[in-house]
């Protein structure tokens, strides 16, 4: 099987995010990058599927900056066979990213039997790329997957919905599966795995190579700012019965006119 995994490199969850100089994006110069946590489930599921189907390969695709390539290296250290990196700024929109992924998969000259992704990236939380990729490649897609079974070209997929209930989907490959937490326990990249990953092929492509230009942009970013600082809370003492009435009136007035919550 030709198994593909799309991964994104996102700021470490403990990063203190600040806007960049001209407020068109976040400041990325001192960010520590990690693999998007949902994508780890995608990599693990791809490796499990590979192990169950002799002769399969796992190819990883990432779109983003090339200064740090930790996420791709980690995926290969975990056991993926090769990877494609499309060099791009971190501020691409979902449409451009999906188009670049489609282009990179085409460059691999392998026809995917299945594409795994995380259900969303934890930095922009757009939740669009998996569905866009599937749409562009004319593949079915199922998202928020917490259960995966494979037999022949049949997939049985469990999808988490509101209230903790589960929907069960049947799909046929080729197909795109967007993974959620709970699907599996991602393995560690072992030290011998890290050493081996050095020798695995990593192909670098430009946006032009995969047929993406600024004209594909649907969303441009501007005016990034930090949320306003919370004003300090107000405290009202109303132990004295004589003033309670007045204080309640004052609080209601403030809630209505200042906080505008009632």
């Amino acid at each position, binding site marked *: 099987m030709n198994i593909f995994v799309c991964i994104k490199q996102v700021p470490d969850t403990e990063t203190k995010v600040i806007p960049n100089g001209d407020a068109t994006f976040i400041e990325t110069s001192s960010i520590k990058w990690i693999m998007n946590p949902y994508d780890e489930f995608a990599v693990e599921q791809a490796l499990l599927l590979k192990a169950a189907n002799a002769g399969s390969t796992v190819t990883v695709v990432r779109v983003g900056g090339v200064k740090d*390539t*930790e996420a791709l*290296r*980690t995926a290969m*250290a975990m056991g993926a066979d090769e990877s494609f990196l499309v060099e791009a700024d971190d501020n691409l929109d979902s449409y451009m990213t999906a188009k670049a992924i489609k282009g990179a998969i085409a460059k691999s000259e392998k026809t995917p039997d299945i594409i795994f992704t995380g259900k969303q990236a934890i930095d922009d939380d757009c939740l669009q790329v998996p569905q866009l990729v599937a749409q562009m490649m004319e593949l079915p897609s199922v998202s928020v997957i917490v259960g995966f079974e494979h037999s022949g070209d049949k997939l049985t997929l469990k999808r988490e919905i509101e209230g903790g209930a589960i929907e069960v989907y049947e799909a046929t490959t080729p197909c795109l599966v967007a993974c959620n937490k709970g699907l599996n326990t991602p393995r*560690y*990249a*072992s*030290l*011998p*795995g*890290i*050493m081996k990953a*050095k020798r695995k092929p990593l192909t670098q492509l430009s946006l032009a190579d995969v047929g993406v230009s600024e004209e594909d942009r649907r969303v441009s970013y501007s005016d990034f700012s930090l949320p306003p600082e919370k004003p300090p809370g107000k405290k009202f003492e109303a132990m004295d019965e004589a003033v309670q009435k007045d204080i309640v009136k004052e609080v209601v007035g403030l809630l209505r006119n200042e906080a505008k919550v009632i």
Partner: protein
Amino acid sequence: MLNFELSSEQKEIKEMAMKFARNEMIPNASKFDESAEFPMEILTKAWELGLVNTCIPAEYGGTGFSTVESITITECLSYGCMGMNTAIMANDLALLPIVIGANDEQKKRFLTPFTESYKIAAFCLTEPGNGSDAGGIKTTIKDAGDHYVVNGQKMWITNAGFADLFVVYGTFDSEQKHKGISCIVIDDKNVEGLEIGAPEKKMGHKCSDTRAVTFNNVKVPKENLLGKLGDGWKIAMKTLDHSRPMVAASAVGGAQCAYDYAAKYASERIQFGKPIASHQAIQFMVADMAMKIEASRLLVYKASWLLDNNQPNTKLASFAKAYAADACMEIATNAVQIYGGYGYSKEYPVEKLMRDAKLIQIYEGTSQIQRLVIAKEIFSR
């Protein structure tokens, strides 16, 4: 040229070891400290991921890491739990004499099994009457024709209760002092006359296994002697050049862990209407911690870098070991101080770190012995 940056591969190794420390070790550290149980499952998992026996060269199935890479891993594992790290590090300490002093056939025979499954090794140097004065070893290794016979007692032997292989120092002639010391490998844990004592009850590093080991006329094949009779001291000294930076790295890991807890707590604990981190008394303590951790780490890296570049590192290894161990003790003590009453409680993580830190000033040459080594390097050259 100077370069303080780890390679991208070394960074990945560090990330992975740190992830293991955070996910597998830290959540279990207090439990195993309490039960003093040997954390076999965690250690086996660490072995499966290649975090154990980092000293084994690639030609014998190991990862073939440089010292800088090994100590990077040690720092992370010690961050996770100093006690568990002792169990891991003790394997390297026992295998290093083989890496340093064994012939090719012995290396294949002794080291390769350690790369095929999780096996445990014990380094047997210290005796009830000889700790710092290792040259005064009483254990004997006598030539008995077609084999050697080992007699004597060893003390504070890490991993002894679970060990598959013992590296034993003894003398074939105590008159000859250092020149009589020899090093032999016992790779049959069931050999007649090998007696393992009860586990010692310790202040810290409780989940690591520490026991006395007694040899009563233990017969060892001739082909298990490392080098020749009398090569033991040389092998032991070279082992320490490798292992001291490693132990120093474990002090850095423990200190970093104590510091991280203390700095976080100082930002959260409110007294006099503001976080205690905004009080200068606490700021000075935290600043000293950060400064001493960085100084320790740089010493550890330099001692390791010298070794990787085939330069003498004895003095730097002792600098690193003494400085990092003393700093770790001070930092762990101050972490408890910053936590105040909570720090003294077992409900919080820092009192364990303080108990664990103490041992690093003692084993692998006390802080005082390190200063003797340093002075000897200064005045005898």
